[in-house]
């Protein structure tokens, strides 16, 4: 049985209040969810708590899973919502998802980045310096290997917006690298 079919079988059992199935699903996906959330909220303790909450959401809402997307995509959508809510609370201000998710990370600036040893590390540092929403979409495409339709489901955005958002994230990454002394020749 492939992994997708196994997930489908497990979620059907979770919908019947099967606790071992929830545990199996959790053990299969917890690290993926933890990494996804931690890359957004940048706090290990918060990410740890949110990961648990995501799987409590899975437990409570498994009956509403209709199989329109993969179980992984469905869980990542809940993780996205949890992470966005956590950022909203942390910033203690009226939430404008576009605005708050666009706040660039201040951990590193171009001058610091340019002194880092090699291009790979500079690239990783620039990825970390992207605004949370741009970092998130890069992770969804590259690390979580989600399709355009799946990213659309997870972020709750039209597919056209997903493509534009990814394009803008890649452009922003190139701009940060250029400012750090690494010219990729694009855009």
């Amino acid at each position, binding site marked *: 049985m492939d992994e997708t079919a196994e997930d489908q079988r497990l979620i059907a059992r979770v919908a019947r209040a099967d606790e071992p199935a*929830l545990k199996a699903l959790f053990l299969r996906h917890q690290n993926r969810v933890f990494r996804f959330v931690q890359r957004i909220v940048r706090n290990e303790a918060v990410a740890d708590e949110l990961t648990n909450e995501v799987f409590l959401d899975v437990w409570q809402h498994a009956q509403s899973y209709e199989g329109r997307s993969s179980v992984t995509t469905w869980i990542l959508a809940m993780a996205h919502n949890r992470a966005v809510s956590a950022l909203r609370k942390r910033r203690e201000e009226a939430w404008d998802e576009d605005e708050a998710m666009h706040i660039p990370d201040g951990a590193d600036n171009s001058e610091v980045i340019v002194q880092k040893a090699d291009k790979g590390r500079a690239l990783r540092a620039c990825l970390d310096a992207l605004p949370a929403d741009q970092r998130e979409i890069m992770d969804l495409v590259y690390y979580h290997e989600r399709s355009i339709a799946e990213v659309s489901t997870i972020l709750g955005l039209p597919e056209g917006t997903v493509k534009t958002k990814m394009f803008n994230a890649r452009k922003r990454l190139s701009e940060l690298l250029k400012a750090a002394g690494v010219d990729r020749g694009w855009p």
Partner: protein
Amino acid sequence: MAMSGDRNVTTERDEIEMLLPWYVMGRLDAADVARVEAALARDPSLERQFRLIREEFDESVAGNAAIADRPANTADRLMADVARRRQPVRRMAPRAAPQPSLWERLGDLFALPQMGGMRLAGAAAALLIVVQAGVIGTMAVRQSGTFAPASGVTEPAPRGTVALVGFVDTAATAAVIELLAAHEMTIVDGPDANGLFTVRIGPDHMDAAERNAKIETLKRRADVVAVAVLLR
């Protein structure tokens, strides 16, 4: 966005460049693949993007991989939270008792149609598996030479590819140990509250076919294995 002139006007090249990350990742639908490949045939300079996308992919993966796995026993906390919230959860067939005992949970486990090979034998069988699970856990783990403490103690996540495995209530301890040893598998944790074990089935970097083959190997031994689910 690399849009010519008017910010709202997207060129055909922009459209294709937008699709390239998914093309490189093999996650485009057939129509878009054909569209990208036609564009690449017309304008080979688009291929320069492949190197950039590969770099982005490598560093995105590296950034995620730098985040350590969670401890192996994090599931215990989740299951405790589930137990606390069990009462308000809406279910199609509400349980008579709000907090089923271990015996009731094991009874549910036996009743599942997907678990071929696990026979429903009532409370006596449930008791047997709990007792035997403890014995198997102790013996198999000790035989492997790497003793793993019982659930509840914080342990780092086991290395390698691991599965969650439940054994048939009537399986002999020796049969379990023999099966695992024959396929170079080791119990690294368990049994948990449901009598399930975490079993290392191979090294970290097994491909999907190898992982599935190992799981199928376990499932084929329906006389010993009741359930085997890949964890990671």
